[in-house]
């Protein structure tokens, strides 16, 4: 329907993926109204980008848009000392993977390096057992709490916590070995 520019596309998207996108946004902004705003903006962005973009998996494509919008909103609030939830914890944990050096100016080289880095992370994740890979994605993509991940995977929060700590360490070592100055 997006490709036919059928205006019912947004309505159909909201019906099918609205709850999912809302949960993605809520994990980041920790507020229902803000999450709803992100989801509405997601539909508009999706409308603007299809065509020409043809996503491999529509649901994930929408969730990526939602995640970006929600994180931008989080950063806006965070600058104003607002916001709570899992994101501060998630970012704090990711400090163990990256050192915190100043970000460079975005340039073609930087964009290329970013894609290369993404490829290294994906290769690292694909080598993991599925359960550990899912734990990593649930924590650092979906911003799920440790308890939510434990419940999803029918294990203990303690084990999730231990596994995530090991994964952060292993990823840091992998990227350092590959020459990334994090």
């Amino acid at each position: 329907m997006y490709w036919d520019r059928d205006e019912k596309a947004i309505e159909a998207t909201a019906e099918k993926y609205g709850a999912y996108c809302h949960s993605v946004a809520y994990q980041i902004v920790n507020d229902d109204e803000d999450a709803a705003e992100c989801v509405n903006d997601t539909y508009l962005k999706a409308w603007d980008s299809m065509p020409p973009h043809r996503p491999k998996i529509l649901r994930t494509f929408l969730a990526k848009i939602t995640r970006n919008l929600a994180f931008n909103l989080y950063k806006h609030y965070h600058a104003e000392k607002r916001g709570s939830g899992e994101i501060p914890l998630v970012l704090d944990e990711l400090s163990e993977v990256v050192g915190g050096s100043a970000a460079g100016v975005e340039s073609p080289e930087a964009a290329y390096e970013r894609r290369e880095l993404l490829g290294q992370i994906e290769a690292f994740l694909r080598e993991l057992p599925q359960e550990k890979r899912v734990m990593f994605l649930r924590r650092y993509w979906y911003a799920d709490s440790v308890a939510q991940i434990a419940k999803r995977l029918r294990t203990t929060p303690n084990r999730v916590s231990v596994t995530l700590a090991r994964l952060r360490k292993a990823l840091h070592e992998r990227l350092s070995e590959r020459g990334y100055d994090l």
Partner: protein
Amino acid sequence: MKNEEFYEILGDLDAELVEEAEKTFVTKKSVKWLPIAVGAAAAVLLFVGGFFLFKHLGGSQSGPTLIVKHISPQDADGRNASQQTEIYRVPHWEEMEDTQRYSVVEYNGTEYTTKLILVHTENVGVKLGDGRVSGADQYAEQTHELPVAIYAIRGIAPKIGVCIAFPDAPDRYFGYVSQTFVPKDLQEFIDTMSLHETLTTGLVYMHERAAEGQVVYEDVPTSLVWDILFADTSVTCETKLPEGKKLLSISTNVNVIGVHNLAITLTEDGWLWTNVPDYVPKAFYIGQECVQRFRQEVEKNYQGYCYIYDFVEDGKTGAPEVAPEDGTVTGETVIWHSQVE
């Protein structure tokens, strides 16, 4: 690089990885209620509606007419659907017993993780040696270790799973399973878990017929798996997931090591893959002929149902995680009530 920038980069991870993380879900308490739900729901079958519905929808189905089953936990055991959404609080270290604190065991260079089961005393084998358990205090951000005795589990090769007894409860044995074991072939896969004695299977889910709803076959005997799918045990094991379309999944249990409701899945290009006994995928090429023969036997000889779930648990509808079917439970699921507020 700042952690915020890294977080944004992670947002561009491949869609398939993100989708896998969304689809992977282990139903926690389905062991307790789903068989009851199925039994009770039988009382409210919509035979007439189901018949006409699937005469309409099932024009292309290859098996006999499906029967509609409504699955409702309220009908089954009086639980309110809202109880499916539980809020968990991670307990403090001092609030937990050792069994909750320590989720990982290292022994002889292998890492085992807890399966949250008590191993019955009669299934505890010889003492293998000493190892260490580890766990994390999330609030204090400290890792703790404890020396423990490691025991074998009868019928289970130590490279698959072991059990341990904590110093404060020496007569209770908890099962742990390796996260890294990969057999060289199907024969080793069978032998290391004594599957001839320990394997049970349950419902068969026809993914290929998703357009008709969730098509499920009940009462398919485990012997059919042995006769057709496990007939040639010399096929080698691959750890990469097959890319072919999934045709069906069989609910699979090895109760002695706490494996409940994992899956044996068949693909259209002739692969059998499974996540038993953990989440490491193991794929065996058994051939398209075997896959199609199994499917045809099921559809020809057993009654198919269309499950309609009158509830949703965390966005999922139950498949393919279902309960042990035969009642020969030799392990006990441990539910950490202390984690639930």
